[in-house]
């Protein structure tokens, strides 16, 4: 509790005790009024002052004004009519308890959510004359060597100079498996070093490091307001004057009608009802719960490695019906791997061994993937007379045998009869001593979770999935088929992707939103053109963080459906709160207008709705099991 809150608690306790004690004393007349005035002023003086100031500044329609008007009215009715002053004090008391609870609950949840996002490093260790010195990470320059001990957060992005360790990246990615790092690996700030001491050469300033960027992004996210929030602001603006007008009508018209019908006017009854009406009308629950829900939703998402840049994007994401994917790096790993070996007489591994050795002099990605698939150290001394034929392949002597590895053209050139492959990808034919030995197929591997991610998206109500790629038609269609993607557009130039997305945007209904998912490397224009741009694999990639509206920290496509589920849950809570708060408000206003509820019930309804709405909003934080 803050100082302010403690002071308020004391005021509440003191005036409540005084009120109860006075209730036991048999005092009548003006003395009774003055005695009751003491607890009233203790609990309500600040509201009276604020209301007074508001009137001076012609800002009359606020809750202070409502509370002051209602309770002063109740006191006056007490003087002229019933001698009951408890009501005014109790109303003020409940109102203050509600306010106190609100500020406490909001402060508490604000702190909880901020703690979730606690990746801010407090210090960096620098070695100086053999001792470790803790310094402010802001003061560490680029190319400084810092030391991170087990249990500490990596403060600044950099490259490991010395040491091996496992890093806990869960605060950044939501991924609980630790990541192993060794010398020359890049590490990013915000990860927790778990096992060994790391010596790191920094490559960025603190302000430019991943942790700082993410914090900045998430903290400013709730400043981009959603349409729901704008609706609430507009609603509150017309609501208060409207309620005041209704209250005035309630106070004046029924008595006048009574007078006209020559019945007793019943002024005090109707004025009391009007005042109760005012008390019941406070729009707090609504105004507080909506931004709190979004704040909690964004906080929960960031815990799962999904960074949302604004409440408006979370809202748009929940309405997504079309998801457009980039292929390479998004659905596939973007790394070429040997996917099949079709051999003739030589055993499979022998074929691979020859191919890898023949290509050992080349730095082409295909050569590298062959070497990776071979897996053992290459013995260059076995290779001689390497002859590279550009656009065709390689001919080299391996263990004294002439090995030719390349495409169909090379085989034709050598006069070797080869068989085509039914598999999609880049095919490397191999001939040994001018005899066909088989072929190896190299293709971009799908991410292991891509197919499951597509199924999940369909399950969560996505109407259409589209894949855009610059790749060849056959490859694109094979990928789309195996993943269950609805539409494929292949052989696109980067500019065509924007045009395709614009076409899709034109064709869809306005309410259904279109999300584009890319790896953020060369699709920034598409990311910004789509309703929602989602960049994945953003660990350490500034470009992606800049261009996208939603950033997935790791490159798991499952996170897309997760993000959509989080947004749906959050928006569901927002709508529940709006409907619930307005419904209870309207109901209690009607009850009050017909004299079925007194001021106590009115204030209870108000505080109760607010507490429930705040608790409901906090639910948006729990998204782990979605």
């Amino acid at each position, binding site marked *: 509790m803050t100082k302010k809150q403690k002071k308020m608690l004391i005021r509440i306790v003191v005036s409540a005790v005084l009120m109860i004690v006075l209730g036991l004393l048999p005092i009548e007349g003006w003395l009774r009024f003055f005695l009751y005035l003491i607890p009233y002023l203790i609990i309500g003086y600040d509201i009276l002052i604020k209301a007074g100031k*508001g009137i001076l500044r012609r*800002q009359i329609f606020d809750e202070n004004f409502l509370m002051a008007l209602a309770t002063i009215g109740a006191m006056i009715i007490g003087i002229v009519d019933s001698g009951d002053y408890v009501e005014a004090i109790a109303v003020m008391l409940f109102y203050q308890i509600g306010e106190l609870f609100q500020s406490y609950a909001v402060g508490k949840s604000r702190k909880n*959510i901020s703690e979730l996002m606690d990746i801010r490093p407090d210090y960096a260790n620098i070695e100086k004359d053999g001792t470790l010195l803790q310094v402010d990470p802001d003061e560490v320059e680029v190319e400084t060597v810092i030391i991170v001990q087990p249990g500490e957060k990596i403060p600044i992005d950099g490259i490991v100079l010395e040491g091996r360790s496992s890093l806990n990246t869960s605060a950044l990615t939501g991924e609980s498996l630790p990541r192993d790092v060794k010398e020359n690996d890049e590490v990013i700030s915000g990860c927790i070093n778990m096992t060994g001491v790391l010596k790191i050469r920094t490559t960025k300033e603190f302000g430019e490091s991943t942790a700082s960027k993410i914090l900045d992004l998430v903290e400013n996210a709730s*400043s*981009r307001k959603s349409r729901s929030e704008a609706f609430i602001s507009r609603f*509150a603006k017309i609501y208060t004057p409207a309620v005041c007008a209704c209250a005035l009508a309630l106070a004046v018209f029924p008595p006048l009608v009574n007078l006209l019908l020559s019945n007793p006017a019943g002024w005090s009854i109707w004025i009391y009802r009007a005042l109760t009406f005012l008390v019941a009308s406070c729009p*707090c629950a609504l*105004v507080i719960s909506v*931004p709190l829900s979004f704040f909690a939703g964004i906080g929960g998402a960031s815990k799962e490695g999904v960074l949302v840049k604004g409440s408006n994007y979370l809202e748009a994401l929940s309405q997504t019906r079309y998801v457009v994917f980039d292929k390479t790096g998004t659905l596939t790993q973007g790394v070429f791997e040997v996917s099949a070996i079709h051999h003739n007489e030589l055993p499979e591994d022998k074929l691979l061994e020859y191919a890898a050795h023949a290509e050992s002099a080349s730095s082409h990605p295909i050569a590298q993937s062959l070497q990776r698939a071979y897996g053992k150290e290459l013995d260059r001394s076995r290779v001689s007379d390497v002859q590279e034929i550009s656009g065709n392949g390689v001919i080299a002597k391996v263990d004294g045998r002439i090995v030719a590895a390349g495409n169909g053209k090379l085989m034709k050139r050598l006069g070797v009869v080869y068989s085509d492959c039914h598999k999609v990808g880049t095919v490397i034919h191999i001939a040994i001593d001018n005899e066909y030995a088989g072929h190896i197929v190299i293709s971009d591997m799908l991410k292991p979770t891509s197919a499951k991610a597509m199924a999940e998206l369909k399950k969560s109500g996505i109407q259409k999935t589209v894949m855009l790629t610059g790749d060849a038609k056959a490859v694109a269609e094979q990928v789309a088929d195996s993943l269950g993607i609805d539409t494929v557009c292949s052989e696109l130039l980067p500019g065509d992707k924007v045009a395709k997305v614009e076409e899709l945007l034109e064709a869809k209904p306005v309410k259904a939103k279109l999300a584009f998912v890319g790896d953020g490397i060369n699709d920034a224009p598409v990311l910004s053109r789509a309703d929602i741009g989602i960049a994945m694999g953003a660990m350490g990639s500034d470009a992606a963080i800049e261009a996208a509206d939603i950033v997935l920290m790791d490159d798991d496509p499952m996170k897309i459906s997760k993000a959509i589920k989080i947004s749906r849950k959050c928006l569901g809570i927002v709508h529940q709160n709006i409907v619930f708060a307005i419904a209870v408000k309207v109901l209690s206003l009607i009850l009050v207008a017909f004299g079925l509820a007194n001021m106590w019930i009115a204030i209870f309804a108000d505080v109760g709705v607010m507490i429930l709405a705040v608790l409901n909003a906090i639910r948006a934080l729990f998204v782990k099991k979605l």
Partner: protein
Amino acid sequence: MKKTYKIEVDCANCANKMEDAAKKTAGVQNATVNFMTQKMIVEFEEGADVDSVMKAVLKNCKKVEDDCEIYL
């Protein structure tokens, strides 16, 4: 130009009022109040004097909500 200020305000509705007041101040192009993080982000018009504009913003905010603070 955009600047962020730390603020102190107790209720969400008051934060909305502050935002309105700040938006209407001369020299301010746009303003957002973030009740959750207790921050005000002010976008100034070109050539506006930040210090004097912010004093006016504070004054206008105090007008609509007495119990608020902007840490300039």
